[in-house]
């Protein structure tokens, strides 16, 4: 559309300003993280005179962000592995195998999409406590898996529907069991979808605060996002360290985004168009 002349600047300028407004808060935070406390109090906006990494170091070690980071990494990777495994298994069976009750089971999985954590927070916390899973890594991992499994199953099912049954039949004729087909055909063929869903699931788990707040009460089990919330009270007078802690929490997401932006967008788009 090259014909939009008249209104072009009316569009371009607001869009550029909005882009700036989207990026500036993060740049501001990164800049503050590099400053000394004195610099920040004197002038909030001036560009930092040096790249000071010591604030980041302080946040990492003495604030405990490093410990929280490792907790998050452990919980998120375990959750994503389980989500992809269970999600692709169920997705394969529900999309490509004929068996009694498959439709009902699919709808049952889908029903999970409409049950947000807030609605089952109280009974779920009780179930976890009754089974000794409160404040344990497996407990939180299980909660994450349960939270994002409906979405994962849904996406894997719709992806596998596009795979021709002839491939599966051929593999069966070659003597593969159903499990063999899953392992040798469906898993490799599903890798684009697994990547997209896996990144989205990882982001969801990494960014969560409510579930880990409810399930992980003790301080040394804290995940990174809960760690960020506890920064505020401790470092209200040391803004550069506070900003460093925020930056530590944002950096992994930024890196993932820079490299895998297309896959993330594909996952979101697939979730919206494959109704």
């Amino acid at each position: 559309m090259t014909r939009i002349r008249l209104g072009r600047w009316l569009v371009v300028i607001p869009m550029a300003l909005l882009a700036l407004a989207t990026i500036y808060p993060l740049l501001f935070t990164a800049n503050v993280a590099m400053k000394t406390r004195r610099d920040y109090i004197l002038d909030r906006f001036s560009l930092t005179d040096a790249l000071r990494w010591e604030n980041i170091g302080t946040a990492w070690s003495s604030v405990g962000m490093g410990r929280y980071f490792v907790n998050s990494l452990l919980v998120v990777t375990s959750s994503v592995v389980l989500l992809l495994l269970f999600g692709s298994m169920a997705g394969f069976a529900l999309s490509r195998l004929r068996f009694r009750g498959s439709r009902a089971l699919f709808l049952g999985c889908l029903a999970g999409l409409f049950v947000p954590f807030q609605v089952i927070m109280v009974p779920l916390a009780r179930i976890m406590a009754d089974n000794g899973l409160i404040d344990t890594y497996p407990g939180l991992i299980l909660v994450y898996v349960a939270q994002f499994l409906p979405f994962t199953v849904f996406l894997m099912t719709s992806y596998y529907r596009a795979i021709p049954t002839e491939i599966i039949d051929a593999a069966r004729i070659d003597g593969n069991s159903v499990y063999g087909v899953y392992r040798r055909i469906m898993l490799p063929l599903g890798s684009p979808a697994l990547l997209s869903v896996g990144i989205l699931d990882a982001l969801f788990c990494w960014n969560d605060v409510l579930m880990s707040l409810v399930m992980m009460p003790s301080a040394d089990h804290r995940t990174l996002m809960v760690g960020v919330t506890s920064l505020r009270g401790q470092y209200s007078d040391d803004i550069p360290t506070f900003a460093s802690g925020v930056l530590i929490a944002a950096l992994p997401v930024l890196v993932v985004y820079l490299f895998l932006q297309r896959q993330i967008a594909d996952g979101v788009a697939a979730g919206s168009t494959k109704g």
Partner: protein
Amino acid sequence: MPIGDVQPSVRPARAGRTDGAAGSAIRRPSARSRRTGVRAERFAPYVLVAPAVLIIVLLRLYPLLLGVNFSFTGDGERNGVAVGLDNYLELFRDPLFRTALGNVGLLVLLLPVAVAIPGLLATFIYLRVPGHRLYRGVYFFPAVLSPVIVGAIFNLLLAFDGPLNAVLGSVGVGPVDWLGDPDVAMFVVVGVHVWATFGMALVVFLAGFATLDAALLDAARVDGASLPQVIWHVIVPALSRTIQFVFVTTMIGMLTSMFGLLYVMTNGGPEGSTYLPEYYIWIQQGQLSRPALASAASTVLFVIMLVVGLLQITLLRRAGREDR
């Protein structure tokens, strides 16, 4: 390859594998193992769906029933005693919960804005505004940040002695207590939420645009339609399904993913003005030890969600009919 040597059109699975593990699994099953094999094969689909179904049923659907059941029992001394609708009566008498519901109403009123912004931006990006690729990448980024991080960043920016007030002060506008004024705080939090999440809706809109027939736009342009006319008469009808979907998901997002922002930015304050049902549930359960009351609030939230969810199912159904 000699002619006449009949090659199977499908290579044995083993041929493509170099690791020994796969090779041993392919064999001609003997008659006996084939018989047990058939039985195992019949159960295979159930084995494959079992983990997912079990987890979803035990940790999603069963707790839902448990929670609804729980909302009709008492707290504290009356733990486990059936109390009928007492919790619900108390809930609707509680000014904090009423504020929370009022804020849900406010979210519904602001919903068109939260949908229109990404819709318009997606339109311009689709029409290849100069730099459209950059814009897409930049706008989408906040959507992948945790609400906690977004909230913490805006705590810095919006502090009473923070940069935003410093800028306003330099142009002669007095400092605004963004997060401390009960009349302002909720709008600020919703604004930040929209800022942080419109990128998601933008990507959904762009996925919708990918299915749009470009010939329609060409035809409209040949007929001399202006841009507003094109948007209103061509794009909106063509993307009606996407627009409805974004409406529903944005609403669900506002109801279930603002906890992080509220927790970090306002803690429900000032004067309880930024309560939403999800925050109320968390406070009652975790801080005030009123699990049954929290369950009642959960049930109310679920009813609100259910209305939205059923709407979504009917939309998807209708859309499915349009496709095929």
